[in-house]
């Protein structure tokens, strides 16, 4: 299902205390990684509302990366655990919308773990390249197309009749 090679766009929510600093450190250490992640700083992963994630996907991102402190190391004690709970439920729901699991990821990167963060971006970029673009606006904008609905109902009928023929020959 891989289409033409494309450069994915990832929206990255980085917590101010660990992962944003990890990202800063990745730069300071001149770690090279894919320029696909567009960062948004939040004070804590607990500030990442599920609707931010959904909004990013809807507005054209191919994936969303949430990055925070390791559980137990949150600067706000357990904000990241709240984030993990929301993320877990959100993913279960996104699956119902046909959005592949890999498109929304959470990663724990402490302030010193610049490599972890850089690797996560690279890895996610590869994964998204394999999955192909998401183009959610296209899904929404084209979904109700009239022509298409007409074509489809014809398709359904054709398929059903073909199936019956096969049945009949037996």
């Amino acid at each position, binding site marked *: 299902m891989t289409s033409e090679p494309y450069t994915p766009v990832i929206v990255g929510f980085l917590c101010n205390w660990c992962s944003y600093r990890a990202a800063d450190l990745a730069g300071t250490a001149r770690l090279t990684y894919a320029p696909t992640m567009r960062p948004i700083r939040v004070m804590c992963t607990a500030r990442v*509302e*599920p*609707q931010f*994630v*959904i*909004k990013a*996907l*809807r507005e054209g991102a191919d994936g969303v990366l949430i990055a925070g402190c*390791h*559980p*137990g*190391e*949150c600067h706000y*004690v*357990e904000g990241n*655990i*709240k984030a*993990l*709970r*929301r993320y*877990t*439920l*959100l993913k*279960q*729901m996104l*699956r*119902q*919308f*046909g*959005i*592949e*699991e890999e498109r929304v990821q959470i990663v*724990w990167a402490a302030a010193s773990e610049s490599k972890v963060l850089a690797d996560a971006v690279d890895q996610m970029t590869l994964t998204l390249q394999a999955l192909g673009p*998401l183009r*959610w606006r296209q*899904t*929404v904008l*084209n*979904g*109700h*197309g*009239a022509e*298409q*609905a*007409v074509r*489809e*109902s*014809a*398709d*359904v*009928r054709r398929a*059903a*009749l073909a199936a*019956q023929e096969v049945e009949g020959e037996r």
Partner: protein
Amino acid sequence: MTNKETSPAGNGKPKLAIYWAASCGGCEIAILNIGDKILAVDEAFEIVFWPCAADFKYEDVRNYPDHSIDLCLFNGAIRSSENEEMAHLLRQKSKVLVAFGSCAQEGCIPGLSNLTSASDTFRAIYMDNPSIDNPAATLPQTVTTVPEGELHIPVFYNTVRSLDQVVPVEYVIPGCPPEPPQIWAVLEAIVTGAPLPAPGSTVIGASHLAVCHECPLEKHEKTIERFYRPYEITPEPGLCLLEQGLMCMGIATRGGCGALCPRVGMRCEGCYGLLDGVEDQGANMISAIASVVNVGKPGDDEAELERRIGVAMDSIVDPAGTFYRFNMAHSLLHRVKTGNNGDVQNRGSETA
């Protein structure tokens, strides 16, 4: 708005239109449920279009001058080309267009079919349905040639939309259906010429606070270990249902209904839709609910933490259908992912 303008028929009463698009008809009944007050409505308005109650043809409406209808209550979602055409037509003819009820406001139950595609819907209705015998695989066709000529029926769209996604509306009256006292309050205000809020998809006939505000059940700090479906437990009376593990949507749902469901021990399903300042009802619900699921604490092993949280969230069955029961068509995602041909793509292990 002023309601003293002259109408084409010239009897001086403001003109009222009521239309039923993709919906169950409950909204029409809700209007009748205002009881005796219906006479006052008849008294105050001249009804110029109400296919459910009186014999009007679309052609009649087409012949009205533009903006000649003073108030149009439009219920139902936009599901077919007919719905869409009527939305445009009534928009053109009406001064004030009101999205009446949840279907028109946010897609409501018809909107849930955005979790599938038109072809899958047809397949379910006309082919795979156990009570259907359809050997010729006859499906609704938009164009059919008969000896007399070509017949046309409306196109069944792939995606359900709300009214305001098709045409601009002045006001929205939420609810599935809107509660009769609220309907009357709005109509009364219009009849008496009371000032209405500024138009622009503005919600009227409802509260600006969540259902919890009207709900008499006792509320505490919330910590939830797991969730139950309504048949699994008998809720303790007098106690917040959400705290008892029932997925009550009241926290994220606009009030105005008087919290009728929770009062009698039924969880709120969210029919009054989202609150002002909220972009996505389901996403807000996820955030709120997941926050108070009392699983995991700092210092837990990371893998174990993820596993346990996963298990707790698994007790929420069909999150999309639960959190977007009424709001699907108005949500940020709007529908399930489709391929270039509009087909629903592989959806993993979707269970409902």
